[in-house]
């Protein structure tokens, strides 16, 4: 656990948290190792954990029958995979697949949700951070659906 | 250049005919104002009989009428729908022709004509407009040689305005009513009871040479005073005014001003303003070929920023709305032009106001934006 707490403290996403808060989060965390091609989770599964990528590359994809899965985003070192754990019904809305060997820290969703309920200051800090990530992702997604490179 | 204001001459109205004859003899195509279709237009004239003697114009926003004068003044009007640009910068011009056959492709420039123009009756605002277009066409990295030749070969007889038009504002733009530069000769009409004479000021060696061959005598002090008084009277009777101070920054800084939306409700994007404006210079090119594909040509034509095509790129027109197109024209004319060419693009001739079918007035639009600048609101 000390190793994880250290990693989280150093991570830009968690920067600015009080040491006690980092400790709380570390208490919900564990290490993961995903092999190339291995799925972190599938669409529809319960969103039990979210992931902080320490090293590697994760593709987010959506599948439609009869077609190859469409990869709509990739995330890399330092980035956060998953926000569905924050809002009911706490289910994943896409597949996440490690493109290459990927080391990640998984943070237990129920554990962290519980701690945020008990400590609203911690909750607010988490909300601020996730909101920022989601706004960026929303903006990028909007650019992607504009299909700016497509022919007019 | 010999130029001596102290020796301003006087010629009679008949000598003006002699002037036209002398220019025709020198193989100039003499162009001057004449009445046609209820307007005063510029066209080839044979003599003073073709001039609009005894006519004046009543101009207002969206309105132009000719009226009879009580005297026989030859130049007793302001400006009509056209300007001299249709001669110096022709509406249609073939740039080159090309042939294609088994041996390959060959492109040939259009042969130059040696037509040269003598303009009779160029107003001060028009002199500035010609100078402005000269800057556009001749002082960029790629001078338009054909334009430069036409301009260089033109003989300009300016006339100082004795009448201010209903939509004129040359005084605001500091482009008149006195003709001060850019002419070979400048005349001021003196009509007093039965005496009908012209003060003549020399502006170039060529002008001096032509005047020398005409019967003339030095102007008297009284005649000089009468001429100056006529010009001063015109200056005080401008139909419009435009406050130019800070106008460039005002227009460039207010692309989202609500006034643009307001004027867009009225503007038909007909492009009349750009056609009658003496400084508007935009053109398009068309490539034509015959049905066999053996010959092709490129033709340049006047264009207007009010058309949808003007700003077309592969995705569509950049300026789709009337608002964007009106804003482009006015901002270019009164603001961007200064960055591009060092002066305003507007000479205050008032044509755009007169010939707008819905009477949009560029001076009124500028004043409205000035009255309520929105620059604070994140332009």
């Amino acid at each position: 656990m000390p190793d994880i707490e250290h990693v989280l403290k150093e991570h830009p996403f968690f920067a600015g948290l009080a040491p006690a808060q980092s400790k709380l989060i570390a208490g919900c965390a564990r290490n993961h190792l995903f092999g190339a091609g291995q799925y972190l989770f599938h669409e529809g599964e319960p969103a039990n954990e979210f992931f902080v990528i320490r090293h590697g590359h994760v593709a987010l994809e959506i599948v439609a029958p009869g077609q190859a899965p469409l990869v709509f985003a990739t995330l890399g070192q330092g980035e956060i995979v998953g926000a569905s754990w924050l809002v009911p019904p706490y289910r994943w809305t896409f597949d996440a697949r490690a493109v290459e060997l990927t080391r990640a820290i998984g943070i237990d969703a129920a554990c962290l949700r519980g701690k945020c309920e008990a400590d609203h200051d911690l909750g607010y800090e988490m909300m601020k951070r996730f909101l920022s990530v989601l706004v960026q992702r929303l903006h990028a997604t909007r650019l992607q659906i504009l299909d700016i490179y497509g022919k007019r | 250049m010999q130029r001596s204001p102290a020796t301003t001459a006087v010629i009679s109205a008949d000598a003006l005919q002699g002037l036209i004859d002398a220019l025709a003899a020198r193989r100039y195509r003499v162009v001057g104002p004449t009445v046609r279709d209820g307007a005063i237009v510029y066209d080839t004239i044979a003599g003073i009989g073709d001039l609009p003697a005894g006519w004046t114009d009543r101009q207002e926003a969206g309105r132009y009428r000719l009226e009879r004068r009580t005297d026989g003044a030859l130049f007793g009007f302001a400006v009509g729908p056209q300007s001299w640009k249709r001669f110096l910068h022709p509406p249609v011009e073939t740039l080159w022709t090309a042939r294609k056959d088994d041996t390959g492709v060959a492109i040939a420039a259009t042969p130059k004509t040696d037509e040269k123009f003598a303009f009779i009756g160029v107003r001060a605002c028009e002199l500035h407009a010609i100078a402005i277009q000269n800057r556009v066409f001749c002082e960029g990295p790629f001078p338009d040689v054909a334009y430069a030749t036409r301009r260089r070969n033109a003989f300009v007889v300016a006339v100082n305005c004795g009448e201010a038009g209903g939509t004129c504002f040359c005084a605001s733009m500091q482009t008149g009513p006195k003709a001060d530069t850019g002419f070979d000769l400048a005349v001021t009409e003196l009509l007093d009871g039965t005496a009908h004479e012209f003060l003549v000021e020399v502006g170039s060696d060529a002008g001096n040479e032509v005047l020398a061959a005409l019967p003339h005598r030095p102007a008297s002090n009284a005649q000089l005073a009468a001429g100056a008084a006529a010009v001063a009277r015109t200056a005080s009777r401008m139909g419009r005014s435009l406050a130019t101070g800070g106008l460039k920054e005002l227009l460039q800084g207010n692309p989202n001003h609500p006034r643009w939306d307001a004027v867009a409700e009225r503007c038909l994007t007909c492009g009349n303003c750009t056609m009658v404006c003496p400084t508007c210079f935009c053109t398009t090119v068309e490539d034509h070929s015959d049905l066999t594909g053996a010959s092709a040509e490129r033709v340049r034509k006047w264009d207007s920023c009010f058309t949808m095509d003007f700003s077309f790129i592969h995705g569509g027109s950049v300026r789709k709305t009337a608002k964007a197109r009106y804003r482009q024209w006015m901002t270019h004319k009164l603001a961007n032009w200064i960055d591009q060419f060092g002066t305003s693009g507007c000479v205050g001739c008032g044509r755009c106001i007169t010939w707008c079918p819905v009477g949009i007035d560029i001076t009124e639009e500028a004043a409205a934006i000035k009255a309520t600048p929105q620059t604070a609101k994140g332009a």
Partner: protein
Amino acid sequence: MSARPGPFIPQLYRVSRTQRELADTVTLELVPQEGARPAFQPGQFNMLYAFGVGEVAISLSGDPNETKTYVHTVRDVGAVSGAIARLTTGATVGLRGPFGQGWPIAQAEGADMVIVAGGLGLAPLRPAIYQVLSNRRRYGRVVVLVGSRNPQDLLFRHELEQWRQRLDVDIGVTVDHADPEWRGNVGVVPALIPRAPFDPHDAVALVCGPEVMMRFAANALRDAGVAGDRIYLSMERNMKCAIGLCGHCQFGPDFLCKDGPVLRYDRIAAIFAAREI
């Protein structure tokens, strides 16, 4: 007997080679029928004339140090560009140019060079990349970021892979969407900027692509700390005469044919985000 070519009259060139890049995009190599081709600056363009059809402005996309040919990468988006794109080896094409202000490559010496390309925007930037790499020692870090619709539409993919093999260039590629075969990034180009290995306080950025992409890439560069007077964009508007006389290519007070197409970001920032300028 042809008229002497000049800025008004096209000079005749012959297509010496064609290469299909994408389904709708072709690279042509042109040699003059007579004489040598004039030198050009990366970022400049020529007006290419298809007999009887018309002219279109196409950026030069080749190596400025290769002095025999003009290289143009043309996308079929209309009557004229389509006619040019369909030209075969040996065909004759008319050419006026080169015109315009190019990328500030010499002025950027000593700084990190960040090149951000979207879609076909990589074509006008390729000459800049060639120029920088041929004088590699004069620059700090060199980063090339490329965005594309999908992996199949990635322009000059082979060259990107070659550049990536160099140890002194960082290549970042991202696509809007992909199938799982693609092992690279999926996402938008601006997202590559915060993580790109360059010093924002000592970098010059060259950006070219669809205008939306350039707007948001410039924002991301500014957010990362690159000064507005060190970001350069290549703008596009309707082009007719290409010599500053017809008025069509105006973007605010700038004529893109003679003041551009490369413009410095801070000087256009005020109108860049405005609609319909």
